[in-house]
């Protein structure tokens, strides 16, 4: 159990802190939003991030990665969360990179992992089909057709789906909707005939898309992992993403907390700073406690991944549920304590609230994960 950072990890955290503050401050997200940027993140800065080793942080040195491991990635994501940095870390590194690492054959790994680590390929996982996270609810079908498969169906909430150079699509090769067995992962070129991509403009100004597949033909070599055995890979990949996005949310809640605390020490009413009022002090102290617990949970979840502990699913659900719930409360508290200014676009707290909502809905919210936790625990 490692709940304390090593020197190397502290160094990485400091590098990440400086990078996001200087290169991807909140102003960057505002600019992307206000200019209606077509890509939704800055590709040049993504290249800088890969030069720093962030894109290849989970990828072995053999493929040009830095192999710094999950704790390292968590530290980077936490700092990204503090500045609401828009980047393909979640879609490309957490989801697709992990999927290829776990299930890819030698050719796929060589091709894809080295391209991800170099910052040359953006990828997206096309999984969800309804308004709630549900990894087995897959109606999209892939019918075997000689030496190929034909994919037909509709996907939604595909993060970075409209800019991806390559998609991973979860489709059903056998069984019925909601069956665990029968799901297969396919590598799909988004330019293939029959793929229709519609960008969805989200409240957090970050990227997502609806993607439909109409008889899209892919060769058998496009199968990632085994036919019908996709759920095992998906679950591991999703747990990595849940823990990673929890780390991002930790940075988010910590930033809202710090900003709010600073505001309470500066804003005056009734002739004194409002931070001197006990009604506000106790609420902040309560949130302080909640965030300290969040930090322990995220660190434990990251080290569970790193040590390949067998309780990863349990701690992933604990982390995602706790961070989702705390992010909701903390952003609401932060906004309320900023008073009318919190309602303005000029202040950042609203941006954090918007991002918190989207992050909460990604890969299962508190309701999903409490239900899953109870099932995993056998009650």
């Amino acid at each position: 159990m490692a709940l304390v950072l090593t020197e190397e990890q502290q160094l990485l955290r400091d590098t990440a802190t400086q990078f996001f503050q200087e290169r991807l401050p909140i102003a960057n997200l505002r600019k992307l939003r206000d200019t209606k940027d077509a890509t939704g993140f800055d590709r040049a800065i993504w290249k800088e991030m890969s030069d720093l080793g962030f894109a290849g942080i989970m990828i072995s040195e053999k493929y040009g990665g830095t192999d710094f491991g999950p704790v390292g990635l968590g530290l980077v994501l936490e700092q990204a969360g503090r500045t609401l940095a828009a980047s393909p870390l979640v879609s490309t590194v957490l989801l697709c990179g992990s999927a290829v690492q776990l299930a890819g054959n030698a050719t796929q790994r060589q091709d894809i992992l080295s391209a991800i680590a170099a910052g040359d390929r953006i990828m997206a996982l096309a999984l969800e089909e309804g308004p709630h996270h549900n990894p087995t609810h897959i109606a999209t079908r892939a019918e075997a057709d000689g030496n190929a498969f034909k994919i037909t169906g509709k996907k939604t909430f595909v993060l970075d789906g409209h800019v991806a150079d390559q998609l991973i699509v979860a489709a059903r090769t056998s069984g019925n909707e909601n069956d665990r067995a029968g799901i297969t992962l396919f590598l799909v070129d988004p330019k293939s005939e029959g793929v229709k991509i519609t960008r969805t403009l989200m409240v957090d100004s970050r990227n997502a898309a609806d993607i439909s597949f109409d008889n899209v033909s892919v060769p058998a070599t496009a199968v990632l992992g085994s036919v019908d055995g996709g759920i095992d890979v998906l679950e591991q990949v999703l747990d990595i993403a849940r823990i990673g996005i929890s780390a991002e949310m930790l940075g988010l809640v910590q930033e809202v907390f710090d900003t709010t605390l600073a505001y309470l020490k500066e804003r005056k009413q009734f002739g004194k700073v409002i931070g001197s009022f006990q009604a506000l002090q106790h609420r902040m102290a309560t949130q302080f406690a909640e965030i300290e617990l969040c930090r322990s949970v995220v660190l434990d979840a990251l080290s569970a991944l790193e040590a390949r502990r067998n309780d990863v699913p349990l701690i992933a659900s604990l982390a995602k549920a706790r961070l989702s719930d705390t992010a909701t409360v903390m952003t609401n508290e932060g906004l309320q304590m900023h008073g009318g200014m919190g309602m303005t676009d000029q202040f950042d707290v609203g941006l954090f609230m918007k991002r918190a909502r989207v992050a909460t809905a990604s890969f299962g919210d508190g309701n999903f994960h409490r239900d899953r936790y109870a099932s995993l625990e056998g009650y």
Partner: protein
Amino acid sequence: MEALEKFRQETRAWLEENCPPSMRTPMTSEDETVWGGRNAKYANPEAKLWLDRMAERGWTAPTWPAAYGGGGLTKEENQVLQQEMRRIKARPPLSSFGIWMLGPALLEFANEEQKKEHLPKIVRGEIRWCQGYSEPGAGSDLAGLQTKCEDKGDHYLVNGQKIWTSYADKADWIFCLVRTDPTKKHDGISFLLFDMATPGVEARPISMISGASPFCETFFTDVKVPKGNLVGELNKGWTIAKRLLQHEREMISGMGLGGAGSGAGLGGLEQAAKDYYGEQNGRVASPSLRDHITRQKMDGKAFALTMQRSAEEAKAGQGPGAASSIFKYYGTELNKRRFELLLEIMGTKGLGWEGEGFTGDEITVIRSWLRSKGNSIEGGTSEVQLNVVSKRVLGLPD
């Protein structure tokens, strides 16, 4: 490393030989707790034997210096001892405010004579101590205490009243905060030790909502105390008091982790829910209850991880992190919520008071539910804890 392994082997062998069989079974009621003292009664003679054997080696206070009767163990050796005791499920040989609270303060603040006099008796469980802190008019505002202590030349004269004095009716001595300068607040308090058998001391148990009476009102009427019983300097007792409170809070925080009296006999929240509410396809039959249980379990796990993180940070030399300031608040609130949930789970079986209609475990849970309400009051209320976090950790102004 090698020396520590040798210590482990020796300790294991010694425990195997010396821990009586009945001391390796879980306690069935709080009455079995060994508190020691002049009037101690041992229903089970093996409890006394276990205490004496452990005290002989100083292992009732393993890390205290051997010169004062302690075990003289290093932190690492003590860890080994605790692990080995857990391994055979050995009961603690002695529960004692002397060990948990007073001893560490004496080691830090008392003179040589006082240490030699009191510490060995604490180690051996000969003297049972109680804590005289709160007063009817000084609860959260503890430094407002008024128990008067006058210098009468060759002795001090103490007059006043304490309240919530745990087990004062059973204790032999008291460590007590008294006012030695009425013109000052924090700087007019002194730390005094005296024998509860001194004329003028009277302890009256208070009936609590749980039906038990662990606390007393304690009255002092012209109590004569030798001047050598003052610990530290006159009017500097507040420093000692604060340090002691720290130990007390750490002790209470652990409750959030669900130890004795936590309803463990019912097999945990989820098992209790299946038993009392029923299950459907392996799930707790009520989805709402199931969700509440999960919230509770998740918070409990997150809290346990935070205590662990804090311990690791301390070990890594990063000092007691800011996280430790929330333990008392969070642990006690968590414990209270846990009992509320347990009662919901038990339904009408969670409403019994005594008698044949309920199992022993059920009655224990009900009584503990009521007892738990005090957790967020004693040792500094939750509100005081939040004040401390606001001011000391977050730097928010008055």
